[in-house]
C-alpha cells in the first residue's frame, strides 16, 4: 500500500539526528514493548509480513507522530484483537477480563536464547528456474496495490539491472493477507540515481532494492 511506511524520497521530516553513545533502550516501556512483540509473535498466529502490514496500516498522522516502538505497540494491539487473543473489554479494563479460546504454546524464558538464535528463515525451495539472470535489464512494475507490498513507490516503473539472484523467498504480498507463502525468486536490482530521481540525483549514486520476481518485467 502507498501508506505512511513508504518513505523513500519523501521530504519534510527534517534532519537525521544521530545520538552519541545511544543506549539500547530509551525507556523501560520500550523493553517491555519489544519483549511483548516477540513473545506475541511466538504464539505463531501471524507472520512477519502481517505484522508489518499492521504497522503500516496505522493512520499516517499516527504513524508519523509515533516512535517505532509505539508503532509496534499499536500494531500489536491490532494483531492481538484480530486474532482473538484480546478484546476491547480487556483493553478498556487494562487487565484480562475475557478468556482466551484455548491453550497456547508460549515462549518461556528458558527458550528465548534458542528462539532468537533460530530466527525465522523465509527462504523456500523453488520448483522452477529463475526468470532473470545477473546482468539482465528489468523494469519494475507500475502498481499501486491496496494491500501489503515490498516494492517501494520510488522504485516503480524504473529500469535497472539484475545484480544477484537469491533463490526463493516467501512472497509478502500474499503472505501478509493469509493468502499463502507463494514463494518467488528474489533479485537484487540496481538502479542509477538518475533513473530513480532524474537529472538532479546525487552524482555517482546507485540504489538497489531486493525485488520479488513478479515485481519485474524484462526491460
Amino acid at each position: 500500500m502507498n501508506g505512511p511506511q513508504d518513505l523513500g524520497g519523501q521530504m519534510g521530516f527534517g534532519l537525521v539526528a544521530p545520538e552519541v553513545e545511544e543506549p539500547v533502550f530509551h525507556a523501560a516501556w520500550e523493553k517491555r514493548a519489544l519483549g511483548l512483540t516477540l513473545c506475541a509473535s511466538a504464539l505463531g498466529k501471524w507472520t512477519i509480513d502481517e505484522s508489518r502490514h499492521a504497522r503500516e496500516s496505522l493512520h499516517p498522522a499516527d504513524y508519523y507522530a509515533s516512535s517505532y516502538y509505539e508503532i509496534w505497540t499499536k500494531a500489536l494491539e491490532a494483531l492481538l484483537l484480530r486474532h482473538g487473543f484480546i478484546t476491547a473489554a480487556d483493553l478498556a479494563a487494562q487487565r484480562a477480563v475475557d478468556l482466551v479460546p484455548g491453550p497456547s504454546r508460549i515462549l518461556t524464558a528458558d527458550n528465548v536464547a534458542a528462539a532468537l538464535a533460530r530466527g525465522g528463515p523465509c527462504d523456500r525451495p523453488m520448483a522452477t528456474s529463475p526468470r532473470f539472470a545477473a546482468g539482465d535489464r528489468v523494469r519494475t512494475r507500475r502498481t499501486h496495490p491496496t494491500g501489503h507490498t515490498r516494492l517501494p513507490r520510488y522504485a516503480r516503473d524504473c529500469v535497472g539491472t539484475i545484480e544477484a539472484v537469491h533463490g526463493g523467498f516467501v512472497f509478502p504480498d500474499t503472505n501478509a493477507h493469509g493468502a499463502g507463502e507463494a514463494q518467488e525468486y528474489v533479485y537484487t536490482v540496481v538502479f542509477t540515481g538518475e533513473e530513480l530521481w532524474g537529472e538532479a540525483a546525487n552524482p555517482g549514486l546507485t540504489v538497489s532494492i531486493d525485488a520479488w520476481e513478479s515485481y519485474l518485467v524484462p526491460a
Partner: protein
Amino acid sequence: MAHDHHDHDDDHPDNELDPVTARVRALETILVGKGLVDPAAIDAIVEAYETKIGPRNGAHVVATAWTDPGFAAWLKTDATAAIASLGYTGRQGEHMRAVFNTEGEHNLVVCTLCSCYPWSVLGLPPVWYKSPPYRSRAVIDPRSVLAEFGLGLPAYTSIRVWDSTAELRYLVIPQRPAGTEDLDAEALAALVTRDSMIGAGLARAPGKA
C-alpha cells in the same frame, strides 16, 4: 504476578504513568493474565539484546574479514554461513549479505519501508535508523545524510545505497584504517563502530579508539 512490575526502573504509582508506559503495561498485564506471555521471557529477550546481541558481534566479523583473507572471501560469497561460523545466527540475520567498502565505492544500508536491520550482528537498530528523516532521505540524498553524520566523502567516491526491501540483511564491511598493520583482530574490532557497519561512518583510526 500480572502486576509484578517491581523490577522496572521507571516504576511509579499507576496514576503517574505517562500514556505510553501505561498502554504497554496494560497490554503486558492482559497477556500475562491470560497466560499468553511469560514476563521472564521478556526479561530474557531484553537481556539478550542488552548484553549479548549487539554491534560487537559485527565488529568481530569485520575484524576477522580484515585479518583472514579466506574468511573475507567466504563472507563475500556466503555471508550467512561465514557469519554463523563465528556464532552469530538467528532473528533478523537469517539471510545475510556483506558489502565491502572500497576507495571508489561507499555502501550505505537503509530500510525505507520499515526498519529491517541485521539484529544478529548489530543488535537493535538506533532510533535514527528507524526514523522518517533517515528512511526518506538515505535513498534520494545520501551525501547530505552522510554529512549529517560528519562523513564527507570525496567526490570520486560513488555511493551505493542498499534498500533492505526483502529478507536479506546487509552488513557493511568498512575499509581497514591505515596504520593498523600491527594490530591483532581484537584491537581491530575496537575500531569498528556500529555506524561504520551501516555505512553511516568509517572505522576509527588507531589511537583514537
